[in-house]
């Protein structure tokens, strides 16, 4: 249903520009964003369309660029801790984890076991939130506003759990180099269980109203197929890859934190279309709910949550470099950290999965799509602009 063959369409020249005459009257330039309801976050796509069919697309990013990687070079290792979470708004905790883990690795710090558990818990809670947002967005891209109303509500319940645990709703700033800031509050597991049940009940509704919905199926099945041959070329990871049948999940393959002690399998799909990707995420979300239960059941209840830190005001880390990754809701999230023996990072590079997904991959797969599917396609890749440009 979706043509992959571009031979009959305009070709790109070696320099990447399109070999067409825009003044021929046959083509139209169409911008979506940055101020546009059909765009995910503050970014823009510049479409060249022929009729209602896209012949070329360029992703424009940088609207959210704050220069984190530069700013971190003039902040001490501890001062970087509060700013990293701002790199990805909907799922900030991966930044905190990857940064902390990279610093701990290069500084040679061992963190207490309880902190490992709490970190894992937070990352899974964040994943739940991220997927809930995605589901609302994916349905919304097809005009199904009600799903977003439901998922935003239950996401807010999870934010309440975040707030009582970390002291903030959005930017938790809880996974600190050296551990986490505190243990769980009293009665947390019980309240979490209620929240999980509420989410499950909403997900059951979502399943009926979104996934078993003729309209959604019509629009999503067979649309936006990612060819498995692209996986490496475009650096595709996470649910986008797993929906293509590739059982790659960092949590399983290169386990970190306490994932080796949890019982789960990577969620995969077969058809690699919008529907499958949505379904993989829905099932991955259910997995996260299960993992949260496992964590709360298995984790130690007491113990230290922070290791002893040197004086952070003049904390120096010997020269070295490392890369720390984790499986976030959108794929592989990683921090490349280089230290030079001073009190400041020499270089931090943040590898967000949206970087490849929303630029190279999106520009490739949107070709031949209908204008009306563009928003859904973009949402189906589950990208967050701030992690692209940082």
């Amino acid at each position, binding site marked *: 249903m979706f043509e992959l063959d571009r031979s009959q369409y305009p070709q790109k020249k070696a320099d990447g520009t399109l070999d067409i005459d825009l003044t021929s009257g046959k083509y139209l330039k169409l911008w979506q964003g940055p101020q546009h309801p059909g765009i995910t976050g503050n970014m823009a796509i510049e479409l060249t369309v022929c009729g209602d069919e896209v012949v070329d697309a360029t992703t424009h990013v940088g609207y959210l660029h704050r220069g984190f990687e530069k700013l971190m070079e003039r902040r001490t290792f501890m001062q970087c801790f509060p700013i990293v979470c701002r790199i990805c708004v909907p799922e900030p905790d991966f930044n905190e984890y990857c940064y902390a883990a990279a610093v701990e690795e290069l500084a040679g710090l061992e963190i207490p076991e309880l902190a490992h558990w709490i970190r894992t818990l937070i990352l899974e809670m964040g994943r739940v939130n991220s997927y809930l947002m995605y589901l609302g967005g994916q349905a919304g891209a097809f005009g199904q506003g009600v799903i977003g109303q439901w998922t935003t509500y239950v996401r807010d319940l999870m934010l309440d759990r975040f*707030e009582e645990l970390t002291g*903030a709703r959005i930017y938790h700033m809880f996974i600190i180099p050296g551990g986490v800031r505190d243990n769980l509050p009293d009665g947390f597991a019980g309240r979490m269980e209620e929240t999980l049940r509420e989410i499950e009940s909403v997900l059951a509704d979502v399943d009926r109203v979104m996934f078993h919905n003729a309209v959604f199926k019509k629009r999503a099945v067979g649309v936006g197929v990612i060819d498995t041959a692209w996986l490496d070329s475009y650096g595709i990871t996470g649910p986008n890859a797993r929906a293509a049948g590739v059982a790659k999940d960092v949590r399983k393959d290169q386990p970190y934190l306490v994932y080796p002690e949890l019982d789960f399998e990577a969620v995969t799909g077969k058809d690699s279309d919008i529907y499958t990707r949505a379904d993989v995420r829905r099932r991955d979300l259910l997995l996260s709910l299960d993992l949260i239960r496992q964590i709360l059941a298995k984790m130690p209840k007491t113990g230290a949550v922070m290791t002893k830190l040197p004086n952070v005001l003049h904390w120096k880390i010997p020269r070295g470099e490392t890369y720390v990754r984790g499986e976030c809701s959108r794929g592989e999230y990683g921090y490349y950290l280089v230290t030079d023996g001073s009190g400041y990072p020499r270089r931090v590079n943040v590898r967000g999965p949206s970087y490849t997904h929303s630029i190279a991959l999106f520009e490739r797969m949107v070709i031949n799509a209908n204008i009306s599917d563009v928003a859904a396609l973009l949402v189906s890749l589950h990208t967050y602009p701030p992690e692209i440009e940082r």
Partner: protein
Amino acid sequence: MSISDVLSPFTAWKNLFRDPVTIKDPLNERPGAARYRGFHKNDMDKCIGCGTCETICQNGAIDMLPVDGIPAVQGDSGLRPRIDYGRCCWCALCVDVCMTGSLTMSNEYKWVESDPDLFRFTPGVDKKYWDNAELGYQRHDEKHLMPVAREEMPELHPEARLDSFVEIVHGYSIAQAKLEADRCVSCGLCIATCPAHMAIPDYIKAVRDGDYERGVQLLYATNPFSQVCGRVCTHRCEDSCAARHEGDPIAIRWLKRHIIDQVPQEKVIELIGKPAAPTGKKVAIIGAGPAGLTAAFDLARLGHAVTVYEAQAAGGGMTRYGIPEYRLPYDALDKDIAVITAMGVEIKYNHRVGTDIAMQQLEADYDAVVLAIGLHQGRSTRIPGSDHPQVRKAVDLLRQITAGETIDVPKSMVVIGGGNVAMDIARSMARLQMQHYGEIRVTLTALEDKAHFLADPVEIKESLEEQINILDSRGPQACVIDDNGKLLGLKTWKVLSIFDAERRFAPKYDPTDEQLHEGEMIVEAIGQMADVSLLGEALTEKLEWNRGRIQIDPNGRTSENWLWSAGDCVKGPDVINAVADGHRVATSIHRALTPQEATA
């Protein structure tokens, strides 16, 4: 796709029968969670204005500013943090790093203004509606962003030091010193407390950086007695240390010693550099103690010809003749003095002014004279029997020990006094007893109760380790002598209270609680005074006096314009104070000796 896919979405209609999830009054119904990181609070009673919050704030959101009604005092800069909510990100690192725990966060989060300039406030000073909020972010107990415990100093074991005058404290290794220096937050509150205003945070940074040569330069910029002060300074700076509020203060004294331990003496002399070109002016200094020699060092560096007259056979004053070797080895002291003499200072030992050379002679021969004679005369309690020959004064005994004179070591003895000098003599005599008899029988009695001893707590701890029998709250009544004129011991009464209701010293005794502390010797270590007999009658009459001491102006100059006085004899006993005083008179003398146009 099936017919169920068409029908299934209609199940959403069941929500028609659900209660809405909407929060009725979101503005009032939703307080922040117990841990919520809301708006800041600051406990004015706890805050010491160290500015560590400002240092850690990665947003540059915090300014340290003076506040009406909060003056700068020792250990509190008087500044308070003002937070710019046009910068803050509510990360609470400022709360985590706060040295006193004064800064916290409430769980309030609503603040709306039309004027953006209003978002700057000083928590705890500018009244806000959340000041009394009970909930909000607190630092987790175990989470300090720096180590709170002091790096332990390796020391001679008590068993090993009972009969030995070997220095107790070994000094930090480089690794230990780095760890200890790492704890410093460089707030600089200590500088004001140090009488010499040494650049403490800077030299601690030099330890962190391993840059000991810079460290030595920093030390010598304000203090030529680093070996001495690195060992026996009263280190009141550590009482002002921000780290003491939630842990141990930084071991400032030990770090100073560590720096000077790392650099060989020749290097030290090289680092200080050569003195200025000779000015042709001559200065005489009476007394080669810390005050005199500091003044001598400064003046020599400025190019003046300095001669120091010292009655004893070696320099250092009370630091040599008062402080036992196990606290301050003589070779450490010699190193400090050698650096000073390397600057061209001439010290005439065994020259007692007033005996070997008259004051008038000095006045005639020199452009300026500094009187830095210290407090070398011991005070007596003057209780009955205190004139017995076996009732001795601590300073005299200590001087004899240093000079290597033979002392008739008593098998048992009693010390009167609760200060460091009392501890010094008790511990020195205990060592001699151990050497001579293999057992220690020293009793120390003091008016004060243990909590109010004037001695350093470490001294008390170590004395107890060294088997000194310390009896507190005992008021001496008489030295008991038998009919044959033999000293039996000291009779004391119990001190009931030491201060009156107005916290004034006014001890009350209980005469029914009387004890006799047996001792062949009694040593009085209650206080010292200056021996000003060297001045002669004429000069004594000429000089202005102020409540028992020679009157000096703020720069140490006496009423006679050729004579300055410095150190313990005018300021009371304290090494670092003496050093500070030495600098002060040196500056004053230099200004007096230098033609006005040159200083302008």
